[in-house]
């Protein structure tokens, strides 16, 4: 029940805030922060409950819903979903903190914002594929409005592109879900029942796995369907970029892991090398494009694509270490991606009013606090030891090494991708913060970070470091949740 | 030669086709109305023929249906003529070629 509270709180917040007149910004943002804190608290309670009693799924609620199509209202949490619930809570809070100054149509903003968050929570909670899909699509429409109304640059184009890509992805996934319904012989959408009793023939798995995987992976930014991600992230207002990069892309990865790999292990084994190749293309391509971007936000946008490549690579390994790495990377990139977008999109932009790297210069002297925050985030993103990125990427690489189906080139390219990540992070940090300008000579200081910004950065950095130093915080809840998927994979491998 | 059901069916099919071709190609509204009537009457011919050659002509199903259709065809024609008047008032013509102000 506590887990379900996250969804209930989000949707109630959306409807209540939507009806408050837009002028009461103070009331609106306090309520928004309160709601975000409440969802976070609920997810933490779930976390500790799960630590206390380690069973497969907890807090299962199962209500009859639409028997005509074998759908029920079934929710519950395991370690994997709890890690993502906590992530969503954190990003939701920091998103509110980084939009603290937003005044224009604030009531509508938070209404869409919480509708989106509610959809995301719902996906992570659903144990019924129909319900999961309903939440998955609920999360699509608010994104359009948030980007189209409060975004910048080519915002309507980016918003439309993002919505159409998400919708096409979900349509492809829907197709796969209906196939699952009939293919299982069970005529149910119950995820647990399908996992335990669904008997999918080998040809069925080979045919349906790519459909499901691609459908979900479009939202995870899989190459060549990633193009919505950079444009969408760049045009979105900061809170939305944080949510998109931090959480929404994880929806896709979560669907790939939970539904595609979890239910169709034989298909997963067959297609793993292909996914492996696509994943390294994601990693290398994203990193190289990030290297040549002139717009600071685009750098971060492409770095997201690159980092999601690690998630996909981890998924493709299909072994314990790799899947663990993928799950950790989801959490880790959620935190770090959100932090990077927050600093570039809000903290730097509101002071300098530009995102073009060539217009930024010598920021180190002019806003040292911000720079240190960004450097920490950049180092975490590079995967320096002590940060969460290091732990997750290390897991993924070890998993890749252990995956016998992969060609050696995948590992080499993944290594090259890490090198490229180092390069673009350092180059961009240099360009933005340390390069003295030729034309401008102003050295006046910018305003220091506001309290809300500091709090947001601190929250995100705290979690990045905590997981980096003590990964057991997450691995201990992820391990039992990944076990049944690994078991199914072992059975399928024969 | 004995006249069988098929003869009637062929005749009605021919009538229907004539009506359809007329309705599709002729642009004069009155002629189109006539063509519509021909099509409806082709169907009426079918009904009567099927009834006549059917197993139980005693039930009068066919003529009954036909009587209804004749009445309906009359109302349709009445409405059609009313529309023709309205068209003429605006366009000063009853040629459908020239009643094409609506954009595609």
């Amino acid at each position, binding site marked *: 029940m506590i887990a379900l509270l996250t969804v209930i709180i989000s949707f109630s917040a959306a409807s209540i805030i939507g009806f408050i007149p837009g002028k009461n910004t103070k009331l609106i943002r306090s309520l928004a922060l309160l709601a975000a804190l409440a969802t976070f608290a609920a997810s933490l309670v779930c976390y500790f409950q799960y630590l206390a009693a380690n069973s497969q799924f907890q807090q299962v609620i199962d209500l009859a819903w639409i028997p*005509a199509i074998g759908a029920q209202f079934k929710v519950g949490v395991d370690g994997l979903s709890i890690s993502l619930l906590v992530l969503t809570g954190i990003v939701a809070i920091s998103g509110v903190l980084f939009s603290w100054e937003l005044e224009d149509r604030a009531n509508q903003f938070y209404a869409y914002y919480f509708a989106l968050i509610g959809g995301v929570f719902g996906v992570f909670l659903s144990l019924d594929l129909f319900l999961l899909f309903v939440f998955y699509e609920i999360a699509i429409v608010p994104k359009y409005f948030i980007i189209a109304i409060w975004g910048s640059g080519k915002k309507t184009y980016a918003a439309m592109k993002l919505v159409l890509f998400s919708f096409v992805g979900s349509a492809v996934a829907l197709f796969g879900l209906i196939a699952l319904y009939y293919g299982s012989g069970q005529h149910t959408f119950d995820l647990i029942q399908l996992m335990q009793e669904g008997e999918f023939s080998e040809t069925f798995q080979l045919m349906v796995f790519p459909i499901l995987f691609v459908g979900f992976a479009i939202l995870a930014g899989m190459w060549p369907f990633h193009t919505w991600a950079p444009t969408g992230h760049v045009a979105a207002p900061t809170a939305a970029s944080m949510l998109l990069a931090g959480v929404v892309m994880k929806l896709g990865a979560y669907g790939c892991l939970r539904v595609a790999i979890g239910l169709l292990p034989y298909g997963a084994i067959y297609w793993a090398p292909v996914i492996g190749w696509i994943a390294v293309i994601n990693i290398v391509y994203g990193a190289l494009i990030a290297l040549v971007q002139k717009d600071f936000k685009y750098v971060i946008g492409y770095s997201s694509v690159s980092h999601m490549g690690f998630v996909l690579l981890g998924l493709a390994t299909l072994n314990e270490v790799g899947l663990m790495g993928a799950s950790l990377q989801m959490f880790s990139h959620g935190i770090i991606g959100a932090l990077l977008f927050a600093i570039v999109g809000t903290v730097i932009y509101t002071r300098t009013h530009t995102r073009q790297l060539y217009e930024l210069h010598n920021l180190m002297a002019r806003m040292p606090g911000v720079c240190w925050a960004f450097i920490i985030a950049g180092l975490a993103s590079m995967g320096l030891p002590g940060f969460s990125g290091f732990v997750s990427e290390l897991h993924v690489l070890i998993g890749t090494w252990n995956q016998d189906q992969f060609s050696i080139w995948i590992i080499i390219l993944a290594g090259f991708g890490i090198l490229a990540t180092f390069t673009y992070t350092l180059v961009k940090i240099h360009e933005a913060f340390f390069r003295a300008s030729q034309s401008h000579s102003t050295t006046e200081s910018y305003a220091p970070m506001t309290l809300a910004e500091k709090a947001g950065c601190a929250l995100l950095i705290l979690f990045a470091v905590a997981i980096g130093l003590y990964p057991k915080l997450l691995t201990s809840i992820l391990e039992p949740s990944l076990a049944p998927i690994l078991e199914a994979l072992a059975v399928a491998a024969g | 030669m004995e006249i069988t059901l098929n003869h009637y069916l062929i005749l009605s099919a021919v009538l229907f086709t004539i009506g359809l071709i007329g309705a599709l190609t002729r642009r004069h509204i009155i002629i189109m109305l006539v063509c519509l009537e021909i099509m409806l009457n082709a169907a009426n011919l079918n009904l009567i023929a099927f009834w006549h050659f059917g197993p139980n002509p005693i039930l009068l199903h066919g003529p009954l249906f036909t009587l209804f259709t004749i009445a309906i065809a009359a*109302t349709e024609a009445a409405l059609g003529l009313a529309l023709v008047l309205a068209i003429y008032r605006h366009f000063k013509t009853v040629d459908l070629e020239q009643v094409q102000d609506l954009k595609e």
Partner: protein
Amino acid sequence: MNYPQLFLTTLPELIVVLGMFVALGFDYTKYKELDPQTRSNKVAALSTIALMLGLAGVVWQFLQVTDGSKTFSNSFNGQVVLTPLTLWFKGLIFVLALFVVQFAKTDVPNKHVSEYFGLILLSTLGMGFLITAQNLIMLFVSIELISLSLYGLTAFQTDKKFSVEAGIKYFTIGGVSSAFLLFGLSYLFGATNELSFEGITAAITSGAAPQNYVLIASAFLVVGLGFKIAAAPFHLWAPDTYQCGPVPVAAWVASGSKIASFFLLVQLFGPVLETSEQKETLIAGIVLVSVLSMVLGNIGALRQSCVKRLLAYSSIAHAGYILIGLVAANEDGSISVLFYAVIYSLATLGAFATIGIIDSRLGREAQIDDFNGTWKQNPGLSILFMIFILSLAGIPPLSGFFGKFYLFMAAIGSQPEIASWSEGFYWLVAVALLMSAVSLFYYVKVLKAFLVSADTPKLPSIQITKAEGAGLLLLAVLVVYLGIYPTGLVEFIAASLG
């Protein structure tokens, strides 16, 4: 003939006809001197009362039939059969007509106020009869009653050139389609020598009917009914009619007549498709119509700037989606078709009503740009419109989503085991999903004007009458409710079809 029985069977219709004559009479005599708007309000009030009393009659019949204390099945020589299902749908038609009357009264096209409402009431009766019809004569008569009333309504703005032109187009194409329908019906009669649905179904399922006659009949019926539901390639009348007729009429064509036609399709084709030897050929034909409708409808809607025309193309596309349930040719298919027809009508009626409100305040036909910034002056209306449009687009938790999902499930369920993607209806569902993605583009484009644009609205203010507001709100609540909890309606339809 049992006259009391006959009287009770047609009670709701008699009430409505009586109400219509009362309205006409008052309008010609007592209200003659009043200004048009007052007259319109008074006549609309009379029509509303008539419809409500009629609805009460339907509800009474429904209660009688469901608890089994009375059956109306043999009355009227078996021309109409009242079952819980048909009565429920007839009740729905009356309810929708009530909404239409509320939306129609603020903007009556000309001084012939009572004729306008009279025609709306007549078409309502036609739809009600079509749903309960169990005999080919009744079927044809009620279809013509609907069509003739709607031709008249479309051309009702006699002072406007476009309205008349749309009327004549609708009339000529509709007339041809009626001829096709009648020709098909005559072959159906020839094949089975029966006029009642029951007898026809029995003759076809037992294999007694000559197959070639059945095939000819079905082909003509598909064409004839294809016109009525505005499925491509028989859709050419729809965009003009929707755009140029009075908006409440367009709403009525898109909602009420759609429900009635789809109900008929399910009744006529359900048994034929399940058992006939010509199943394969027929299904292939309907699939073709379905694909064409989805593609032409959605592609056509993309380039429209007039919102009514856009919705017309979207309704063509929706006819395509609904036909997917029909080709499933199983019980789930029939249920899903009826369910979708209901929720589609609710959403489309709401959308048209909103546009009608804005059109009437603007005094001209609204382009998408005219909606810019509506959220500023009337956030409530914008939210309701968003609900209707998103339901049409098939976004959960609105009912359009479940409706489509159910159609797709039914289609795939008709042949779930396949060896390659070309078998079964997986490919058809894939086409439909792709087209839904296309449709999202133009739906979002309309919503963007309503909810995103920061421009100053074209209209200084939008005042909505209480009746309009209540109608829209109720429609939106229904759209949301049937999306979140469709089980009640689905199970009712399933049990009644059973």
